[in-house]
Every structure is written in C-alpha cells, then in structure tokens.
C-alpha cells in the first residue's frame, strides 16, 4: 500500500467536475496546456452525452461551435466526426446569420469525445461523485472530495455539473431524484457549495419523448434532407474529407386534437400541482406552454430527428413536456405519422441547482473563491454549445491562473462567446440562458464564417492551435487581404462583353469604367458571378472568396459597426479596482450602489450594462477613478 492510498489522497493540478460538453472542453484545454488534470463523471459511459436534442449548432449556437474551434476547442472537430446530416440555416438571409447545424449520431459523438479524452496525455477520467469542495486556510480552492471520501488535491477546480446537482425528473405524478436519462443525480455537492457561501438558483428544463422509428409512418411527413454540399464545423476540415451519406429528418405538425388533449389535461401538469418549481427556458417551451400561450396557433411544427445510426429511436423536436404518461401517449398519437408510434422514452422536465452566475468574473472564476471556476449549465446556461464555449474558456483560464497569466476574456465585439459570458455575469438571469443572434449587438462582425479570423490568434497565443494550423490561417488572411486590394483596384471598362454581362444579370450598364469592388456591391451581382469578366482572378479556396464578397458587399454596415466597437472598447478597457467600495464613491444613486455590489463589474463598460446603473452613475465613476488614480500617483495638484 503506497502512502497516498493510505491517506486516500491524490494530487493533480486541475480537477474538472462533470464530463459533459463543458467538462470535456475544460479538461482538454487544461491538459493540453500542460496541467495534470482529473475529470469526474457519475458514469464513464456518459462522457459528452447528448441527453436532449440530437444535434449541434443551429442559429447562433453554430457560431459558438465555430468559435470554440477557432480557439482550439474540440466540439467542432468532434461533431465533424459524428455528424449524420449537415445543414446551413438562414441561407436566404444575410451572411451574418448563416448558421451551421449538424445532426449527430449521439453514441458516436460520445465515443469519439471519450477517445480524445483518453488519448490526451495528463488527462485522467474518474467515475465518482464529487461531494465536497476542499479549501486552503486562506479560502482559496484546495481540491475536491468524492462521496467515497477520497481527496483530490489540486490548485484549480472547474465545476461543470450540468443538470446533475440535486436534480429531479418529473412528468405527471412521477417524480424521481435522478439526473438526465435516468443517470445518478449528484445530491451532495450543493450543500458544500452553499456552505462555501455560493448562491444557488433552481432552474428547470425539459426534453421530449423518443419514439421507435419502425412505428412511424413517414409517408405522412415531409422529408428534411441535409445540404448537398456539406459544411464542416472545424476550420481544420475540408468538405471533401467529410463526405458521407446523410440521413433525413421529418417534419409533421400537431393537430387541433393534440391541442384539445393538452387543454383537457393541463391541470394534470406538475406545474399546476406545484411539483415543478424553478424557471424554465423561454426558448424551449413545453408543448403545453405553447398551446396555452399561443392559443391562436392552429398547429405547431414537430421535427422527427434520428438519435443516431445505431438505433431506431427518433427524437420529437418541439414536443417537450412534463404531462403524465397517458397524456403524452394520447397527444403523440394525435400527430399525423405518429398514430401508431411506440414510445421508447417519455418526455420529462428536469429541475436542478446551478450557480447564480452574477458571482462569476468574466474569466469564469468565482469572485469570492480563488481557483474555483464554473462552466456550462451549472452557470445557468442551456445548450451543449453554450456549455462547450464556457468549458473551453474556464479550462484556458484555470491553466493561465496556474501559470500566473492574465485570463483570456473575449469581449462582446469579438465573439458570441464574449456576449454569452458577459450576459451571464452582468445580467439578472432568471431562466436558463440560450444564445441568440439578437443578443449580439455587433453580429455583423461576429459571423460564423469569420470565427477563425477573429479568434485563431487568441487560440494560438493560448497554446491550443498548432503551428501548422496557424500558418495556414496566416496564409488565408493574407490571401483575403490581397484579393480585396485587387478587386478594389481592378477596373472593368465599358466593353461589349461587360455590358452584355451586366444586362444578363439585370444590372444597369456602365457609363464609364468601374472597379470590381463597385460591381460586387450591386445587389444583383456578387463576387462569384463576376468571374466571367474578371480573367485575372487568382485561384484561392472558396472561404477566401466568401470573405472578399462579404467584406465588400456589406462594407458600409461593417464600417458603422466597427466605429461603434471603437467606442465600446474604450470603456471596456477602463478597469474598476477589484476592491472598490461603491458606498464610498459618493454621488452614486442607492440603486446603482446595490447593483454594482451585486455584480462587482470588471470594467466601466461592464458596469454600464448593468440594469439600474445610469449614464450619470457611469460619469460619476469615471471621475472617481481619475480621483483615485491621481491620489495614488501623487499627481493630485497641478
């Protein structure tokens, strides 16, 4: 027996609690940056499990995955390994909101992620329930203790507990103390967190039923195929390399009968009996919520999505519910194509504890406990992608903390990840937070197509992007730049060929010469079609062409946003001292003092976004900062 075993103690640098989408990214980042990392899961077979929808990406979530990839995270690469359908959404609208979504083979996604974890040096998986946090005398984190009493001493802990903390699954009169998919709940850690002075919230979310695909009548549904031309999530991959047969999803609708069944049984919803407490996400309303809230809608869309190639199970997207089993049966059978469907798993609502994210710094470290980080649903977000994005940032920042480096903080003008984290730590969140394009005020700059251009540099600096990939990125950047230069300075004359071309595209003929840039800007033309009258065009990858087209076409809008960003950055850079006492500032309104104390913002910019802090309060703070600065530097009088 070794000494360690006798003490029932082991030593790591970083411990990650939970192996969902946040936990995997956090642990991978930590280990890849050279730290001995342990990752805990209640079941080693549920690593990177997708307990709800069988897809990754979608509107604005696709952006997050792209950004995770650009920073050197794993989610993009992993969905590229596991997708069974690829689709670019919003293609009819502007490029800023094009959004990639892929249907996943759930088991393959989980297996592939596990392989990556297992093959990462310095990363170790433990199946155990973490029940307690351990602290140093100065209050900073010292490690975790598992239910069995083993202590894992480390210098940073990242909580990625998902929906497992004191979780409870409910449908109808059934209420079980389990985590998602019937997995074991984590019932002990919450009290340890509370004992450490951490405020917890009680949130809820839900998932729809799964049915047996063999019992579905697809002839009564509309087929939803993937794109012919697939798009990889990872900037490392090419479409050609990922070619594979795709499977379809199926569209059907609820009926008046479905709504009748729901209305007749609404009083049997656990929401009415009070069995469900906690706030659900507005983005994923249950079908009963939709029917009650939008009585004028005669039908609601339902998508049948395959859970994977390994199974007949189909996920009924749009029908999340916590109604009793018999009601679920009746309403599913009232849907065209599902009349005879055999239900594999019932829909359920799940309630769980999460941290009030107002307690976090933008680095995702807790303000009050040095070395304790938190990411994902345990921060009150919802969704795999939101979780992965936070996990990656928490992993990077835990590693940087141990190295004594400043944290990586992306701001709202740089990434959806920046918007996500800033919203979490700056707003009063009363429901699970889902990313949405409308949350990103600079979304024209934050496109999924340019995530690499925005973030590869950060990933490289952080140490998660290989030299080879970085060099490729620099080449791409250079190509875009030189091609924009070229179209700006290449003029086409009023020759017959040009005029005929314009006429064919319904475009006004030229009176005098024009640059290619000007022509690209015409709504009816674009970079691609101009190839015909642009013989000098160099051969570059498609992604380069795409960037040129977007940069030229929306230049006016892009420039306007860049100007706004410039203003925005000024206040982001004005940092507030961590120990500032707002009570002592004077001339701040009482409400402002309370809010500032609750959120303890990092910068003036963040302070400005807190509801209840007025422009006048900000002006007062600026004057106060200057006063303090002069006091300390002794340049008080002039």
């Amino acid at each position, binding site marked *: 027996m070794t000494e360690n075993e006798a003490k029932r103690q082991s030593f790591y640098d970083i411990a990650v609690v939970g192996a969902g989408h946040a936990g995997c990214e956090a642990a991978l980042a930590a280990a890849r940056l050279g730290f001995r990392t342990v990752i805990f899961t209640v079941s080693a077979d549920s690593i990177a499990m997708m307990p709800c929808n069988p897809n990754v990406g979608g*509107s604005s979530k696709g952006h997050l995955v792209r950004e995770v990839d650009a920073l050197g995270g794993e989610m993009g690469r992993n969905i590229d390994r596991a997708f069974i359908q690829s689709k670019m959404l919003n293609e*009819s609208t502007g490029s*800023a909101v094009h959004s990639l979504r892929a249907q996943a083979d759930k088991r393959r996604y989980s297996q592939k992620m596990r392989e990556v974890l297992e093959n990462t040096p310095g990363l170790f998986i433990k199946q155990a329930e973490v029940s307690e946090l351990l602290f140093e005398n100065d209050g900073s984190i010292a490690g975790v203790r598992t239910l069995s009493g083993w202590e894992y001493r480390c210098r940073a802990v990242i909580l990625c507990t998902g929906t497992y903390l004191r979780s409870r699954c409910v449908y109808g009169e059934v209420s079980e103390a389990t985590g998602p998919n019937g997995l074991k709940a984590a019932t002990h850690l919450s009290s340890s967190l509370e004992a450490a002075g951490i405020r917890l919230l009680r949130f809820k979310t839900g998932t729809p039923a799964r049915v047996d695909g063999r019992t579905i009548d697809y002839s009564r549904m509309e087929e939803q195929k993937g794109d012919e031309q697939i798009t990889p999530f990872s900037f490392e991959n090419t479409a050609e390399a990922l070619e594979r047969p795709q499977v379809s999803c199926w569209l059907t609708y609820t009926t008046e009968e479905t709504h009748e069944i729901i209305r007749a049984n609404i009083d049997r919803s656990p929401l009415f009996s009070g069995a469900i407490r906690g706030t659900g996400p507005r983005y994923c309303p249950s079908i009963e919520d939709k029917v009650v809230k939008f009585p004028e809608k005669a039908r*609601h869309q339902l*998508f049948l999505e395959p859970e994977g190639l390994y199974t007949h199970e189909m996920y009924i997207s749009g029908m*999340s519910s916590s109604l009793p089993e018999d009601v679920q049966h009746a309403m599913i059978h009232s849907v065209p194509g599902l009349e005879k469907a055999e239900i594999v798993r019932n829909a359920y609502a799940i309630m769980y504890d999460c941290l009030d994210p107002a307690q976090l710094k933008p680095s995702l470290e807790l303000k009050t406990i040095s070395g304790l980080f938190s990411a994902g649903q345990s921060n009150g977000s919802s969704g795999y992608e939101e979780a992965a994005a936070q996990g990656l940032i928490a992993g990077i920042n835990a590693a940087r903390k141990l190295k004594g480096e400043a944290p990586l903080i992306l701001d709202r003008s740089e990434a959806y990840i920046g918007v996500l984290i800033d919203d979490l730590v700056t707003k009063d969140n009363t429901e699970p937070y889902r990313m949405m394009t409308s949350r990103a005020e600079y979304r024209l700059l934050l496109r999924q197509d340019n995530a690499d251009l925005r973030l590869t540099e950060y990933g490289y600096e952080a140490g998660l992007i290989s030299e080879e990939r970085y060099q490729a990125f620099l080449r791409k950047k250079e190509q875009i730049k030189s091609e924009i230069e070229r179209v700006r300075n290449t003029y086409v004359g009023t020759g017959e060929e040009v005029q005929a071309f314009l006429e064919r595209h319904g475009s006004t003929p030229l009176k005098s010469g024009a640059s290619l840039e000007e022509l690209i800007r015409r709504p009816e033309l674009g970079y691609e079609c101009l190839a015909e009258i642009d013989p000098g065009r160099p051969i570059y990858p498609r992604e380069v062409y795409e960037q040129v087209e977007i940069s030229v076409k929306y230049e006016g809008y892009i420039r306007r946003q860049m100007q706004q960003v410039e203003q925005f950055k000024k206040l982001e850079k004005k940092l507030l001292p961590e120990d500032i006492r707002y009570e002592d500032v004077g001339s701040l309104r009482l409400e402002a003092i309370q809010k500032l104390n609750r959120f303890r913002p990092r910068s003036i910019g963040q302070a400005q976004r807190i*509801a209840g802090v007025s422009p006048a309060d900000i002006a007062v703070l*600026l004057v106060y900062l200057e006063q303090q600065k002069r*006091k300390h530097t002794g340049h008080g009088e*002039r």
Partner: protein
Amino acid sequence: MSDVIAAISSGLVQSGIGIVRVSGDEAAAVCDKVVSLKGMRLRDAEPNRFHYAHITEGGRILDEAMVVFLKAPHSYTAENTVEIQCHGGPYLMKQVLGAVLRAGARPAEPGEFTKRAFLNGRLDLSQAEAVMSLIRSENEFAREMAMRQLRGGVSAVLQEIRRKLLHRAAGIEAALDDPEHYTPEEMTEGLEAELTGWLVQLKDMADTFDNGKMIAEGIPTAIIGRPNVGKSSLLNALLGEDRAIVTDTPGTTRDTLEERLRLGPMTLLISDTAGIRETQDKIEQIGVDRAEKKARESDLLLLVTDGSRPLTKEDRALLESTKEKKRLILVNKCDLPPAKGTDWQKSAGKNPVIHISARTGQGLSKLREAIETLYDYGEITQKPLVVTSLRHKLLLEEAQASLREAQKSMAAGIPEDLITIDLMAAYRSLGLILGEETSDDLIDAVFRDFCMGK
C-alpha cells in the same frame, strides 16, 4: 480620442451675448461646417484669438458671431474647444446649436464639460467631489426637465411606434433564431408601408418643434420698415390692445432689448423695441443692413409700409431682401386715403398683406388671425404632439434617419438581419426621448410575440 460635444454654455436667457461651446478632438472640423471665416478654415485660423464669422446652415446665414478656437490643453475642458459667441436670445442660440449638432457634434450630457475638464486634469483633485455631485444633480434636473417637456400625447405616440418597431424587429429575429418556424419574408411583409407611415408621423412631430416651441416660448418677431411708416405707433397699438405685458413695467420699455407682447393667445417677442422708438427721434440711416440683421435674429417679420404713399425705393429693397423670411406685409395708415396705383399684393408676392391703421386700431384683429394661421396655431394647439425640446427633436431626426436607412436597405434587397439593426437603432433613439431602458426588450418581445424553439 474624445467625441465632439456641444451645448449652450451661457444659459438660455435673454442676454447680450450667448455662447455655444463645442469640445472634442475634432471640434474645429465640425465647426468648420457651419462657421465661415473670411478666407480660411477655423482649424487653420490662429488659435486663442477672436475671429469674426458668419454662422451658416444650408447657405443661410443664421447669425454673425465672434468665434474663438482654443487649442488643447488651453481650454476649460483641456480639449480642442470652439466657442461661438453669437447674439443672445434663446431662439438664435438654439438655431446655432442646432446647426453645430447637425454638423456632427452630439449634445453634451449634463455636467459633461466639467467631467471632461476633470478627467483631463484641468480641475484639481480637491474638486472631484464637487464634480461628481454636479454631475448627479445636473442629471437629475435634466431628467426632470425632459419629462416635463414631454407632453402626454407625444409619449403615447412614440410608445406606440416603438411597440410596433419592436414587434417587427422581434419577428425578424424570431425568424433568424428559429428559421424552421418563421421566415424573414413573412416578417417583413408590409414593412415598407409601415416604415413610410412612421416616417410621416415622426416628421410631423419633429416639424412641430419650431412652431410649438415658439408658441410655448414666444415668437421672436421684428418690426421693420423705412422711417415714418408707423412702426412705433404699431408697437404702441399692439401694446395698447392688450395690456398684459409680461415683463417689465410699462414705460420702462425703452431700455429693454425685448418685449413680450401677448397677442390674443400667442406671445410675440419683439426685439430691439428701444431701437424702434429711437428711430422716431433721429434722422436715421436704417437701411437694408439693419433690417437684415433683425431678420436673422427673429422668426417673424412684420414689414410695415405706408399705404398713403407710393412704394419707395427703400420699401422695395426691404421687400426684396426679406422675401425668404416668414413675414407679414402691413400696409399702415389705412385710415388715410390710399396712394393711387400701388398694387400691394403684387409687391408682397405670396405673403399675406394686411391693411391696418396703427392709429385707429383697424385691422389689428386681422393681423392676429394672420399670425395664428402662419403658425398653425389652431392646428398646433389641438395637436397634443408638440415637441419643445431640441434634444427631443434631434432624437426624432436620428430615428427618422435610421428608418430611412431601413427603407433604403429594403429597396436595395439588403438582408433582413441588417434591417433589424436600423429598426432597433430607431427604437433606441425614441427610447432615449422617453427615458426608457432598452437592454432586453428585443429578446423579451421575441418570446412574448412569437412561438419559438424546439
């Protein structure tokens, strides 16, 4: 980099000289768009010296002024600063400030000059507390004022437009966030017509600014005319018609620069009344120059002629030089036999001609009616939608600009996700008028108005 801010720094009271202060890195460049110096640009002019200049907008001269360019750090804010010293009087000062703001400055926040002065090290440490308390108190005062200036009807209409704007934007956002439920096309159906409607509403409202403000504050008026046509008697007659003189005791008017004169329900602010009386005593040389100057300083001109005599060269010159102004042609002495062969209406062009007798009081009620018509008095007072704050007017203009941008984008087939950016910009501008916070409105509206999600 500091952006350019501007405000009237001498206070909005009747005074000899009013100062519009403009501060920020590009203060001179902004002012160059409205300040015309002889033969050079302000930014090239010798700093810290007064220069004579015309303040112009759209080719129109608003005022003559003395302008000084104070180069950083030698100014109150320690930034590049331009101070425009123009003729005092709220009307003219607001005109000049408005021109500077349209040229690219933004209105200074309450206490902002002082804030900048402190941040730039111009005020010493001991003054910090005072600066902070000044910022707070000025903001509270300004908020209260803004609320008072916002009449009930205006806020109701703005709220309604905002509600609809938000609903539109939320619809587009819902389609972007949940493209399988909604399409952007269905969400923008009929939007063009709606945009046009909002633009008309906002424009009408902004247009009430000048008239509405003047009804509230008084119409800056000048009485002009060659000597001996009866200007002074007209003034006396007007004063006599209604003794409710708001300022000053009768009899001391000789020394005041401005007289508040109640004409029925309206108030005229007659400037330079001392001047008008003086003219009785002197053999004067009031030529076109002086009339032009007066015309610039006022919104309404009462051009007086003598109906008992034929038009003189001087009359014609006055008629010609003021033809761009809002004016009434008053043909005085209608109690005397009219001069033969003078077609007054023809010489007045499209301006109303009113025959009066300052001596007998004949025609004065017609004069009042004519002024009411000129200022849409009936219309304005029945419309509750009167905008009286310059800041509100500017925000209304901003909102219109955003909506026009949205219109342009729609016409050019620009994608819907960019159009919501303009819609929300207009939404925010209108929100600033109402003093409403806007941060999460859009998301809330998306969920409230649309059935979203999986």
